[in-house]
């Protein structure tokens, strides 16, 4: 009895070993935290986005490495003269992972699902301009807008197309996603791993090259690093400079880097003193030395940045255009005097619990204290920080925010009066006018002119002192080919990677 049990255990072991060789092309990824769910219409956090975006699900459009909008499930599209009607021609021969064909009805169902109250999607505001979605025929979809929306095509890249059968289903996709992407969902061990396998019926012939992706959830940074150097993991996606520098030059490890879309910032509450006074906000900018922050907190891997990431080459202004970015504590003191506030100005700074942000907050505290402020740091737990942020319960906060490929996606909701993430309570008639105008324009030159003016005004007297844009790294085994790190942290390039 015992011997036979032993024998079957041993043979099972051999079988497992054999299976391991057969699936040797499953890419082992070391991720720092696991997703809270996999429903693409419900998730917003990076750990979920990373697994789902471009791997399991696709949108009508996609964002490429240079942050340009490219066709994805829509092969092509046309926009009406007034910018209010978009007609999408769908790619033919696309199927979902459950075998059903992807057609116009699925696109319409996905849009409706996103906008429905029952699903309560936090992404709904990205389609707030959409009035209706209609299937013209099986391969053609028409979106009618209430008003022109210049960022629509870029926003659509993050709106996953799900099967029509899921339109009213609230729970199924959180556990078992069904998309059209190059990899399909196989297994999820909470706190362990998420396993995706190759979608054999993927519409782009010859892709994906890998037979699967395994996202191992490894919370400890030192452990991930060892896992990469000893070959247990082949990719550590989207890591910070400190980790990248430690891995630099290790045998069998190579690094890829790009300019991050995400930015570090100091947010100011303009609904109460002292930051209700634009001169005080300008003084903060003069007090801060951004080069020093890049050197000390980002280990030199980053650049000082304004309201838009330098990765947005066609939009961002050079920081030289912003006068207040010249570090000048004396000027800051003079501005505080002009503002008529009692110095030193006592304020609190709430800090997002991430090591890089804690480092940055300490440097900012030091710099501001030398320029007429008296800053008290408040280190908070994540949940508490988010709650205070949402309730505008702060003088100042230090944080890291994800950036967006189109300026409208960031500016409108953040700086427009009453915008959904305008926690600063900022309200400025000129900015509102410019943002409204740029949103309804489709002419690139006119939009650019409007956003130039917005950036200039926001940089010095806006409610946010933008600090830095870091260099975003990925570390990988040098046998991994064809993968590159993207500014928006998407891992969609894994479809063409091989190992």
């Amino acid at each position: 009895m015992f011997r036979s049990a032993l024998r079957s255990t041993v043979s099972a072991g051999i079988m497992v070993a054999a299976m391991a060789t057969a699936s040797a092309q499953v890419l082992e990824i070391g991720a720092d935290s696991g997703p809270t769910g996999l429903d693409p219409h419900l998730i917003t956090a990076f750990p979920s986005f990373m697994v789902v975006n471009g791997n399991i699900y696709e949108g009508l459009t996609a964002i490429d490495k240079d942050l340009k909008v490219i066709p994805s499930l829509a092969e092509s599209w046309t926009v009406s003269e007034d910018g209010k009607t978009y007609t999408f021609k769908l790619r033919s021969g696309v199927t979902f992972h459950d075998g059903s064909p992807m057609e116009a009805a699925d696109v319409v169902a996905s849009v409706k699902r996103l906008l429905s109250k029952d699903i309560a999607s936090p992404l709904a505001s990205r389609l707030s301009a959409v009035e209706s979605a209609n299937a013209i025929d099986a391969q053609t979809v028409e979106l009618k807008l209430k008003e022109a929306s210049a960022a629509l095509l870029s926003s659509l890249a993050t709106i996953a197309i799900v099967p029509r059968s899921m339109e009213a289903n609230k729970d199924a996709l959180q556990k078992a996603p069904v998309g059209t992407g190059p990899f399909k969902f196989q297994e999820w061990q909470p706190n362990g791993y998420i396993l995706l396998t190759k979608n054999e019926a993927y519409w782009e012939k010859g892709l994906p090259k890998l037979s699967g992706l395994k996202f191992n959830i490894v919370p400890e940074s030192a452990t991930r690093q060892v896992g990469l150097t000893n070959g247990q993991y082949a990719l550590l996606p989207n890591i910070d400079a400190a980790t990248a520098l430690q891995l630099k030059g290790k045998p069998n490890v190579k690094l890829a880097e790009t300019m991050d879309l995400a930015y570090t910032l100091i947010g100011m509450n303009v609904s109460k003193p002292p930051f209700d006074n634009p001169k005080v906000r300008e003084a903060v900018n003069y007090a801060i030395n951004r080069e020093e922050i890049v050197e000390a907190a980002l280990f030199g891997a980053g650049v000082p940045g304004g309201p838009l990431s330098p990765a947005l080459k066609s939009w961002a202004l050079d920081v030289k255009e912003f006068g207040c970015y010249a570090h000048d504590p004396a000027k800051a003191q003079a501005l505080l005097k002009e503002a008529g506030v009692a110095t030193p100005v006592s304020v609190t700074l709430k800090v997002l619990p991430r090591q890089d942000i804690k480092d940055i907050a300490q440097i900012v505290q030091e710099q501001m204290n030398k320029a007429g402020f008296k800053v008290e740091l408040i280190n908070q737990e994540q949940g508490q920080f988010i709650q205070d942020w949402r309730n505008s319960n702060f003088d100042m906060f230090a944080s890291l925010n994800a950036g967006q490929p189109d300026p409208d996606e960031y500016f409108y909701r953040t700086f427009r009066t009453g915008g959904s993430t305008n926690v600063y309570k900022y309200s400025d008639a000129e900015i509102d006018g410019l943002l409204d105008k740029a949103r309804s324009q489709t002419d690139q030159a006119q939009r650019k002119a409007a956003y130039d003016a917005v950036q200039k005004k926001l940089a010095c007297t806006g409610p946010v002192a933008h600090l830095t844009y870091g260099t975003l790294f990925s570390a990988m085994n040098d046998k991994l080919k064809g993968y590159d790190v993207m500014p928006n942290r998407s891992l969609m390039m894994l479809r063409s990677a091989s190992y």
Partner: protein
Amino acid sequence: MNRVLLARLIDLVLVLFGVSIIVFLMIRLIPGDAVAIMLGANTEITPERMAELNRRVGLDRPIIDQYLLWAGSALRGDFGTSLWTGRPVATEILIHLWPTLELTFLSLLLGAVLAVPVGCLMAQMRGNAADVTMRIGAIAGLTIPSFWLGIVMILLLSAWAPSFASLGYVPFSEDPLGNLQRMLLPSIALALPILANLSRLVRSAMLDALGQDYIRTARAKGLPERSVVYKHALRNALIPFLTSVGIMTGYLLGGAIVVEQVFAIPGLGRLILGAIAERNYPLIQATILVVTAGFVIVNFLVDLLYILVDPRVRA
């Protein structure tokens, strides 16, 4: 005997009821809102959508309703579903329970079992160089933080034996060898402080026992030294040892958060930590109840062991 059992069972029910109320209130006292945390910082969302999301997961109801609803289904054996994934909480706990049970078993096996001979040896060699060395070792074992030890062991192993897969977890049923291979280092990291603690305890209890009159009598009878130490002295020294093992087992069953983080093991510690961070109320609630029940049950088993070891308790 039956009366002891019954009394313990009543204890268990009372403790679980008390804990369920305390946990329920406490986790709701922590600032931070489950919906806001799920969405993360800087998500574009209107207050109306937030309210809809709250309704979706039932957090819009009054707190008393929420408790009664939860307690009602928990009594029927239904612990509800995880807030956002919709997975049954019972399944979620079961998945994370196995690695924790295994880790508890292995680290006790290494730590507690070794502690007895090591402690006896230290007592017998009292005062000489070997005793001093072992005592210094024990203090080191107590003071070295397990996360540091874990990372150092991973680093050393990856330098010496790069192909030895030491990270993550595979179930024993899938790959017994790979499972033991991955459990080795975390078990050592957890076992070392246990070994240090318990061997010191055994040492002092043994020294105490060895000074007693009955030991002198046993020696005077001409019993061999081994029999004196292991049969007469040890049995009496075991009571405080068992108490400590019981408490340690209770803690280990609650999950070893730090070691689980370092070695990427999906155990109860990480389940609770993650659940608290995302304010996953149903999951926190049930997991803590399971851990509490584990603690009470282990204590009960220790009480039974007392009876086995010490006939006086039986009376």
